[in-house]
């Protein structure tokens, strides 16, 4: 699915989180929204996922206006910063949640749910943890379960908010590779938010550098490195 963001702006009371921004994301791209805190990158991601609504501007999915579309209708696989796993459910039930939440006639049978959950557990390389609770998992495992849960709904796109933010350097490297592989096998348009320029440069096909609610530059990692469009981008990506 390709995404067009057209003059999107967001105000919270009197403060502007997002100045009108425009951006086109090709189908199947792996995009990083890179910027310091307060740059509006998470706000933009949440608007795409349907968790916030813009003050003005439009969002188009595959060319169709999706600005007012409800969060449920969007079918965006969303991975939250601290994973937001359902703490009172097992890993299996966490992943199955989206399937069970479907309307009766679209809901797969119990056997099919089991098959799909196990396939996802294999995909994240944690085949034997279905019976555990989130509190019994390490940070890296939780992140992967959150990813599997988001993938279970057969999403149209994958949105990740600081997916590696709370992890140590070694686990981070592994999971980066894991996300790349999952992106390549599913072919899903994937957008992730990060403040880590190394992560953005290494993982993404397309990097969107943001600052103070504005897009500073859009480009391939190599282009941003070699031809930064402003002093801010130069300073931020050199860090």
């Amino acid at each position, binding site marked *: 699915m390709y995404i067009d963001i057209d003059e999107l702006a967001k105000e919270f009371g009197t403060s502007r989180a997002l100045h009108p921004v425009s951006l086109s994301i090709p189908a199947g791209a792996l995009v990083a929204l890179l910027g310091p805190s307060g740059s509006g990158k998470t706000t933009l991601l949440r608007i795409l*996922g*349907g*968790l916030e609504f813009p003050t003005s501007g439009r969002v188009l999915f595959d060319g169709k206006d999706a600005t007012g579309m409800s*969060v*449920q209708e*969007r*079918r*965006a*696989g*969303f991975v*939250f910063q*601290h994973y*937001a*796993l*359902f*703490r*009172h459910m097992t890993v299996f039930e966490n992943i199955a*949640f*989206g399937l069970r*939440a*479907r309307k009766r006639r679209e809901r797969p049978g119990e056997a099919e749910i089991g098959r799909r959950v196990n396939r996802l557990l294999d995909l994240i390389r944690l085949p034997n943890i279905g019976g555990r*609770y*989130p*509190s*019994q998992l390490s940070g890296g495992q939780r992140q992967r379960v959150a990813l599997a*849960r*988001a993938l*279970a*709904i057969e999403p149209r796109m994958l949105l990740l908010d600081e997916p590696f933010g709370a992890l140590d350097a070694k686990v981070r490297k592994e999971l980066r590779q894991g996300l790349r592989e999952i992106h390549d096998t599913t072919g899903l348009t994937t957008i992730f938010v990060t403040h880590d320029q190394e992560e953005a440069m290494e993982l993404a096909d397309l990097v969107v550098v943001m600052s103070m609610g504005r897009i500073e530059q859009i480009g391939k990692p190599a282009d941003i490195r070699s031809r930064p469009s402003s002093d801010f981008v130069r300073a931020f990506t050199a860090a």
Partner: protein
Amino acid sequence: MADIPVQAFTPVTTEHRHFRAVLIGISVFFMVILLFAPLATIFATALSDGWKAAAEGISSPDALSAIRLTLTVAAIAVPLNIIFGIAAAWAIAKFDFRGKAFLITLIDLPFSVSPVVAGLALVLLFGSHGAFGTWLIAHDLKIVFAFPGILLATLFITFPFVARELIPVMIEQGRAEEEAALTLGASGWRVFRSVTLPNIRWALLYGVLLANARAMGEFGAVAVISGKIRGETTTMPIMIEMLYNEYLSVAAFSLASLLAALALVTLALKSLLEWRFAGQLAATRRH
């Protein structure tokens, strides 16, 4: 010098043995004076003329009517407060809106207002000379000195319990899990039922137990609005006071024992549930 290695292995938070003994002693002393002694006295006085006299004390028609009234009021007030408490806590914890601080203060109001004042306020509002008095008389509705008044007073007094238990828990848990459920396609009702409610159920249980204990035990506000009509508008606490004032101490104390026993049963129930679901409780609190 010989005990230095021993010292090295004691945790830093451990106080000196004597100090510990003093702390425990103080707590036990107050527990005995303030909790066990009065409770024991109630039961002992109730049984001072034997089991038969005690049983008669709680099986007189007036006492039975008081028991019935108290249980009915609690059975209506507690569910209503569950609904209100969840709604208020949900609004306060999950949304930002103008007047939020004011709403929190308002929820606490019944704690800061004396129950007698609350009862009087209701009498003034709904009594025959009150603001709604003529309207109520015209429509033949009795609130003051009748069941609806007692229920209103109890609702007012038990207003904060559920909400106050839930608000900190819901604020601490934030909105992320609910948002996650929404992105997975769940409807609002499903999010509430399968994500919010399981996460707050323990706080909700505590709130319900506290509200229930208070609903059964409330005296001041109910005493003012009920008019203390024997066999009609006397709840258990009021009946106890009336019997006591009439020097019928065995009857008074046996009814008091029953009321205390009801409270003990709720406590026991709570402990039982905690013990039964200890693992689950720990799992939801960690994370």
